[in-house]
């Protein structure tokens, strides 16, 4: 059957382009459902097949398990082997879920464009969406280097097309091209990494990596792969495309890109990491350092943004940092032969991949609804949306609590695993390692505090208070089909928060089968801790409900008085006097001035202004890495301009160049240099 699935899916995807507009959404939805179903079944069989993991103190289960499922597709040019092992099965399930919710959300979100966009544009959009899904699945299952790179490229191109949906805006066009260029820088690094593997005597394939790593130095090639994948994943300093591309894309696409597409980079790093044979210590240190930087700077940048989707985009970078911290912890665990650290690091990291895909897509859909109803993404113009859009507000708050890693939701579970791993690591190695781990704990707590700062600002400024600017609010555009996928995601978020074991057990199996941390020798089990956390989650929910009920019954018979907010004696207050996003973030941006680089354009009152007239203050924040990258491209531009002198346009010169080239080759050959 599987031989027919791939041609069928490809063929059906082309039908999107010709199908009439009325049924196009349902056709695409059913196609995505079909792809999801067909790929999820073998993935789920893989992922949930039991394995005995001692850390969770599970009952001894079946130790024999499926190692991998192979789908071989024989074409004219040769055979294409799609392999689903535990690692890819996990990512396949995550991908399928988010792509599906994105599709469901897109119906309501794209409705507003029906009058301005022609059917061909819609067809192209849905076509690219299906191809993004297909290419991500291919990336996750292909092991052969060349095929993998082709799928990787397809993924970049299809997401490029998706970003381009609002191509009539110049900024979108610029962003999309910028995205495509940066993706190719990553692509080149991956290509070189694969070529090095091939030159090292192996094949150009992920399967050949263990053999290569066994006989060569590990750090260099790993770092090359890491850099290539880091461009996709958004590790700082490779992140500069991300905060531009996410806001430019339609919201369901941002949700899918941030939720799962950048996780393909994480998948790639994991895929290489399971092949690495030695040098774990160095690799772990590099991962920890880059991830700590990514996490801290990501959330710092997010605090000063005005664009609600940029806030979310930078927080994506932060979460990638947290995922990377887990990978670093796991690698150091492998170096120290400390199974607990390996286990906690990798399990926490992978669980955070799942968690982030859930709450970040929820938040992006929420911000899309805000944009739909208000036509602005600038939080300084928003305010008081909670009264007109209570469901969107509630779901956005729910996602914010989850992303701040607060109990009882899912974000806390993955960060808890990382925390306990780092605390355990304090006494695992020498004193330098203790200090290192203490600083990672410090980073995690700072990230946690800053995330609370950033999301209380994002939610508080845009949804609470009163509108800061007169905007034409259309809450009726938020239809039920936009709320439904968000509720679906919220249920999963709560489910993982209250029943962490259900999600952790299969991920623990995955870590056990891929990294072989070995059995828990030191009696360090934490199944009990997870059960207690879910117990506390329940207690908290019950307690809040009880208090609210008691409160309601206490004040039932009392006459409440309603009036304006207490203005501390001043009664002429206007909405413009409210705290804005910039003023809320002022204290942080002052503390972090060297990194954040705010640009203030203030037209102050001159000394001789007797009757002061209009003044203005513009605040802009710049990403120092974008600026640095810009300087780099400027420099290369200068060099290339010089080189362009060679391009004279005179045919005789070109013949001369060819002649010189042949001469050089000849001399080099003669001297036996090549």
């Amino acid at each position: 059957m599987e031989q027919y699935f791939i041609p069928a899916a490809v063929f059906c995807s082309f039908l999107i382009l010709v199908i009439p507009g009325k049924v196009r959404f349902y056709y695409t939805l059913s196609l995505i459902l079909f792809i999801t179903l067909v790929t999820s079944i073998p993935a789920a069989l893989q992922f949930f097949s039991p394995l005995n993991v001692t850390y969770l103190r599970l009952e001894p289960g079946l130790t024999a398990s499926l190692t991998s499922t192979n789908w071989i597709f024989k074409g004219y040019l040769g055979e294409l082997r799609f392999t689903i092992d535990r690692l890819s099965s996990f990512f396949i399930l995550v991908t399928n879920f988010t792509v599906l919710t994105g599709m469901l959300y897109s119906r309501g979100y794209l409705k507003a464009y029906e009058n301005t966009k022609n059917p061909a544009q819609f067809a192209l959009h849905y076509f690219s969406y299906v191809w993004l899904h297909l290419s991500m699945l291919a990336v996750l299952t292909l092991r052969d280097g060349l095929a993998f790179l082709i799928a990787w490229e397809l993924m970049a191109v299809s997401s490029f097309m998706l970003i381009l949906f609002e191509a009539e805006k110049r900024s979108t066009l610029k962003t999309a091209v910028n995205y495509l260029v940066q993706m190719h820088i990553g692509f080149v690094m991956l290509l070189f990494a694969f070529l090095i593997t091939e030159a090292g005597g192996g094949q150009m394939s992920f399967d050949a990596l263990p053999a290569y790593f066994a006989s060569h130095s590990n750090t260099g090639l790993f770092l090359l792969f890491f850099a290539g994948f880091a461009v996709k994943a958004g590790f700082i300093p490779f992140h500069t495309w991300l905060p531009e591309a996410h806001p430019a894309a339609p919201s369901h696409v941002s949700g899918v890109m941030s939720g799962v597409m950048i996780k393909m980079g994480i998948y790639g790093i994991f895929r290489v990491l399971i092949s690495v044979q030695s040098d774990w210590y160095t690799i772990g240190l590099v991962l920890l350092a880059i991830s700590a930087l990514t996490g801290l700077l990501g959330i710092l940048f997010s605090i000063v943004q005005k664009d609600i989707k940029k806030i979310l985009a930078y927080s994506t970078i932060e979460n990638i940092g947290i995922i990377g911290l887990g990978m670093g912890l796991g690698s150091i665990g492998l170096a120290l032969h400390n199974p607990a650290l390996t286990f906690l690091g990798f399990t926490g990291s992978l669980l955070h991949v799942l968690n982030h895909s859930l709450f970040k897509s929820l938040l992006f859909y929420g911000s899309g609804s805000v944009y739909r109803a208000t036509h602005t993404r600038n939080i300084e113009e928003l305010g008081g949306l909670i009264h007109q859009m209570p469901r969107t507000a509630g779901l956005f708050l729910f996602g914010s609590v989850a992303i701040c890693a607060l109990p009882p939701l899912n974000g806390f579970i993955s960060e808890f695993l990382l925390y306990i791993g780092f605390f355990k690591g304090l006494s695992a190695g020498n004193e330098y390692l203790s200090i290192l781990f203490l600083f990672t704990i410090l980073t995690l707590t700072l990230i946690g505090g800053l995330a609370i700062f950033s999301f209380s600002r994002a939610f508080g400024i845009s949804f609470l208070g009163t509108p800061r600017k007169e905007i034409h609010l259309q809450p009726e555009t938020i239809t039920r089909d936009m709320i439904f996928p968000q509720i679906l995601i919220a249920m999963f978020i709560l489910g993982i928060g209250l029943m962490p074991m259900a999600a952790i057990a299969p991920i623990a199996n995955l870590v056990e089968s891929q990294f072989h941390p070995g059995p828990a020798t030191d009696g360090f089990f934490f199944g009990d801790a997870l059960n207690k956390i879910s117990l506390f989650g329940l207690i908290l929910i019950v307690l809040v409900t009880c208090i609210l009920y008691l409160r309601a019954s206490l004040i039932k018979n009392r006459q409440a008085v309603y009036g304006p907010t207490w203005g501390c004696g001043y009664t002429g207050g206007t909405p413009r006097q409210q705290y804005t996003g910039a003023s809320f973030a002022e204290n942080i941006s002052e503390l972090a001035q060297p990194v954040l680089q705010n640009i203030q354009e203030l037209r102050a009152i001159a000394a001789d202004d007797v009757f002061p007239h209009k003044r203005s203050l513009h605040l802009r924040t710049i990403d120092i890495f974008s600026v640095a990258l810009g300087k780099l491209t400027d420099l290369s531009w200068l060099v290339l301009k010089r080189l362009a002198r060679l391009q004279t346009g005179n045919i005789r010169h070109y013949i001369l160049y060819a002649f010189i080239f042949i001469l050089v080759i000849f001399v080099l050959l003669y001297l036996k240099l090549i």
Partner: protein
Amino acid sequence: MTGALLAILSAVFFPGIILRVKSIASGRKGPGILQPWKNIILLFRKSSVFSTTTSFIFRLAPAVYFATICCALMLLPFPGMPSVLGFKGDFILFAYLLALGKLLFILGALDTGSSFEGMGASREALYSMLTEPAFFILLGTLSLLSGQFSMQTIFPDFQFAGEFSLITGGIAIYLLVQIAMIENSRMPVDDPKTHLELTMVHEVMILDYSGVDLALIQTATNLKFVLYGGLIANLILPGEGGWLATNVMLFFVVQAGFAAAIGLMESFRARKKLAKNPQFIVTLSSIALLGFILVLLLTRNLIR
């Protein structure tokens, strides 16, 4: 649970002692020990005034704030008693529960749309962000010294870590007192008796609360105090060696002493300039870091 019950019991006299000590220090007789609670009970009986700007967040926030502190109280260990609800890494849940309460509290303040309350919310978010590392480094130090990961076992085991526990114990108590002061928005960073909204932190955030909601917040604040007092008591009280009765007595003595110390500190200490607050809070983290490195030096190099 013993810890939680005893802490709640000590909360009965805790705010009264602070008030009384402050009154006596300023040369007044002062109200009765139970006066703060009488005020709260009065508030529970009153009807509310709501701002029309507010939404359900404003009503939800006090309940969540109160509930998170109750949950955190359940995690409070008691020396010598087996812990029912404690687990490995419970202090992480402890800190994050309090953070959840704070997030809702901040949102409740922003919900009113008042510029003063936004100001307080921003400050609260900054201070709690800066305080958390100090708490985590402190727990990391104690965990390293004791080799344990649960608050129930960290504190008693830490006491048997020999003469080092005296040195680190001093640092730990100092840090816990200061963290408790910042978390409860008390003297060095915030003055509950200040009269100018521009310089308030906690008080300005609850400007619009009244009646039952205000009573909930004030109850929660008092409970938060004894929560930290309980942690300090755990540092001081003998673990397995002591009798239960003396431990209970000592627990109350520590709580009362903590309350008196707060009263004295608030009477004789000036409030910091707002702009200096972040610096002060970060200093706590650096002290905690120094303590950690001290422990590393002592345990790793001197013993070997």
